[in-house]
Every structure is written in structure tokens, then in C-alpha cells.
């Protein structure tokens, strides 16, 4: 059952076109990965789905309703959460306060959010009162994912979750994503093909603002060599 379909969207930065008639489809509980070189339009696509950017043409349908060009705060309340590439936690606030804002926005009790966060990443118990800006890159990424998971969202849009992280931390993120499978749908921009091949239900390679093809066949998904062509 489709949860999201993006249909022929065009996105512009001023007069420069960044996305050219991009379409994709995602079923409930699926993980779709977007791969491609820098400047291919991957981040632009995620930002357009979550409402940070507007599209000029085309439509985005989420749970049978058109949502293109709606505001991100509204889409978040409907269950679409975006985790940006730069690992921008609320650095002046503590880990607990970061979770507090997520709990507040979702109408969930803070104690429940903290409990979930510690379940996902036990080290958070000792880090609750630490400024989020002082966390390591991997801890920031996990905090962002935990924050986005608060209130049981339906669709996560995650931009390069493992970029620049050590392999041991990538393992933690892999485990977390693996745990989420089935309970939430996700579109993930990722360059780490090992992670992609292990978790993807479908892959969309992108090039110059276009989706080149849709890969859903398991043997094709696992073919790292073929995927490397797009990076």
C-alpha cells in the first residue's frame, strides 16, 4: 500500500532548476534509498517532500492527500519528519531539552520520550544534562533520529545519516535503522552502499536533478558494483 508518491515535480532555486520531473513511490513500512553524486538533487528532493522547499509543478501525495508546498510544521504534525544532513541538534540546549521539545511538539510525555531514547541508546542516560552541541557526531545523529521518532511518525526523511562517521558508529546507526524497519517508512539519502544494500527495499539513483531508475529487485539492490556507477 502506497504511503507516498511523488509525481513529476520540478523544483527551482531562483531561476535554476534543481529537480526535473522527479517521481518516486514508497509503500508503507518500506525503506527507499536515494543515491547519487553531490549536486544530483537528493537533499533538494527530501526538503521538497517535507515542505522546506516548494515545487513549481507536479504533486506529492501522502496517505492519499496532496501535500506539496504545505508548511513543514504542518507536515510534521501529519507524521513526516525530516532529519537534515548537517547534524544540527539544538546545540545550546541539553540532550534532555532537545527531547523535551520533541515531546512537547508531539504531545508525548517527556518521561516516555526519555525512556525511549535510553532504550534506543543507553548512553543517553548519562548524557541527558549535557549540551547537545558537545555530543559526538554519531551521538548527534542518534539524538536527531530519536527526536524525529517521538510521537510515532509515519515517514522519516533522513539526509546522509552516516556521512563522516566512524565505522563503529555507523554500526550503531545501522542497528537503529534495522530496528525501525517495518514500523515506519523512510526515504534515506546515503552514500554508504553496504548500508544501502542491507536495508533498502527500493533504490532511486539520481543524476543531474533526475531519478535515473527505480531498483526494486533484490538481486539488483545487492549489486554494489552496479550501484557504484551512480556515486
Amino acid at each position, binding site marked *: 500500500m502506497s504511503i507516498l508518491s511523488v509525481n513529476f515535480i520540478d523544483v527551482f532555486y531562483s531561476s535554476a532548476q534543481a529537480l526535473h520531473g522527479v517521481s518516486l513511490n514508497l509503500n508503507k513500512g518500506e525503506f527507499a534509498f536515494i543515491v547519487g553524486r553531490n549536486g544530483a538533487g537528493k537533499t533538494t528532493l527530501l526538503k521538497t517532500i*517535507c515542505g*522546506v522547499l516548494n515545487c513549481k509543478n507536479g504533486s506529492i501525495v501522502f496517505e492519499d492527500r496532496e501535500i506539496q508546498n504545505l*508548511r*513543514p*510544521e*504542518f507536515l*510534521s*504534525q501529519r507524521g513526516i*519528519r*525530516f*532529519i*537534515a544532513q548537517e547534524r*544540527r*541538534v*539544538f*546545540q*545550546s*540546549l541539553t540532550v534532555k*531539552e*532537545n527531547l*523535551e*521539545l*520533541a515531546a*512537547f*511538539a*508531539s504531545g508525548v510525555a517527556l518521561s516516555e520520550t526519555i525512556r525511549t531514547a535510553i532504550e534506543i541508546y543507553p548512553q543517553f542516560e548519562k548524557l541527558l544534562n549535557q549540551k547537545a552541541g558537545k555530543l559526538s557526531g554519531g551521538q548527534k545523529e542518534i539524538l536527531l533520529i530519536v*527526536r*524525529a521518532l517521538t*510521537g510515532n511518525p509515519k515517514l522519516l526523511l533522513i539526509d546522509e545519516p552516516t556521512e563522516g562517521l566512524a565505522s563503529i558508529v555507523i554500526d550503531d546507526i545501522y542497528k537503529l535503522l534495522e530496528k525501525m524497519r517495518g514500523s515506519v517508512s523512510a526515504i534515506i539519502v546515503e552514500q554508504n552502499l553496504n548500508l544501502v544494500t542491507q536495508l533498502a527495499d527500493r533504490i532511486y539513483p539520481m543524476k543531474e536533478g533526475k531519478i535515473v531508475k527505480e531498483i526494486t529487485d533484490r538481486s539488483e539492490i545487492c549489486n554494489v558494483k552496479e550501484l557504484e556507477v551512480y556515486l
Partner: protein
Amino acid sequence: MFGLTIGAILYLVSIGFAITFGTMKVINFAHGSIYALAVYFFMTSLPYVKNNFVVSLLIGIALVIPLSYLIEKYIIRYLYGESVHYAIIATYGVLFSTTDTIKWIWGTNPWPIIVPTRASIQLFDVTVPLYRIIIIGAAVAIFIALHLFFKKTIAGKVIVAALDDSVGVRCLGIDQFKYFSLVFVIGSALAGVGGILYSPIAAAEPYMGFRFVLLAFAVTLVGGMGNLTGAFISAFSLGMLIAMTARVLPRLSEMMVFVVMAVVLLLRKEEYE
């Protein structure tokens, strides 16, 4: 003591400006309108409340709160995310209109306002007017109150979070503009408090908003965009600078603030680019 008094007033006037600039990236020169109007509302209401300073102050603030809300709702809100040039032009327009309205209603002559208390206290060998201590005390109390607001309340935390990552706040599902409005109104009310407290020292005149909004701009830039503690330190430091320069070169006292601002801008060029 004059330096600390000026510093306290600069803090009260600039804190709203600093918050608006830091969170919404809007340079709001209409802040000067609120500052001036609060003083005129205050002095107009004085005879009706038997010259009760505190009651008139509350009336002045109460009258500028809805005005600042309207400015935020119908002007500032359309400038979020736009180039700062639009904000400067639009809010300067508001400041010009307000100043002309003040001239039209109250005339162009300065209105002297009586100091509410002439009492003074002895601090070591120095006699200090009580009113100035009240002004400094008010600024410190407001600094602590604002600190608690940003540290302890959800509204405050949303604003702090928006300073770090505005998109992140929106993508959590929080309508940050609702909180921006609240903070905008609080900042405007504080500008009104600053204007009213300073009016017995400087008298009311139509262009007072222009003068103080430029000083607030300088305090905000020197303190660091969106840095609320920085604004406090910057306001008192620049207040002391004005007082010290006034002893030697009175005509250059306020100009020194802008010299410091220019130096800070040169040193922190990248931050403001």
C-alpha cells in the same frame, strides 16, 4: 552612575531588537516607534492618574503591546526569510510614519517629565540618585527574568532552539512564528519600559525613537547577533563608554558607540556576512 544608567536603558531598549534580529533575522527599526510611543502615551496619561508614575508606566506599556502585535502580524511576519534590506526599508517606514504622527498629535517641542523621586542614597562617599538605582535594578531584574524565561519555559526553549536551527524546530512540528510573536511583543514592551524610565532624564521629543533604535542596533551588533547575555554586557559597556567620553568630549560621546560597532563589524565580518 550615569554610565550604568545609560547602560541599563540601552539594555532595555536593545534586548527586544536583539531577540528579533537573532531569531527572525529581521532588523526592526519600528522598535524605535514603540519606544517613542510608549513615552508619549505615558506622559499623556500622567495627569489622568494624578501623576502616578507606575500606573502611567503600565498604561503606556499596555497601549504599545497591541500596536507591536499589529506591527509583527501585518509587517514583520511578511519579512521572515526575506532579505534584510526589505526589513530595513519597511520598518524604517513605520518609524518615519510614527514620528510624523507624534509630531502631528503632540507637536515638535520636547516635553520635560518630572523625575518620580528626588531621593538619593549615600554609597561610600558618593551621593547617588535613587531613581538611577531603580533603573539599573530594573535592567538587572529584567535580565534575570529573561534568562529564566529562556532557560525554564517551553516558549523560551523554542526560541533558543530556533536560534540554533530554525528548520529543525519547524520540522519537529512547532509553529515557531507563534513564539516569535510572543517574544516580539515582550521585546517591544521592554523597549517601552526603557523609554519611559529614561524620559525623566532626557525629556520626550518626536525623534527619540530614531536616536535610540540606532544605539540598540549598535548594542546588538557588538553583543553578538542573538546573544542575550552579550547584549547585556554590550549595553552596559557602551553605556560606560558614553559616560566616559561625555566627560572629555561631550559631542563625541554617542559617536564612540558607532566607532566600537564599526570595529566589531570588521573583526566579526564573517559572522554578519
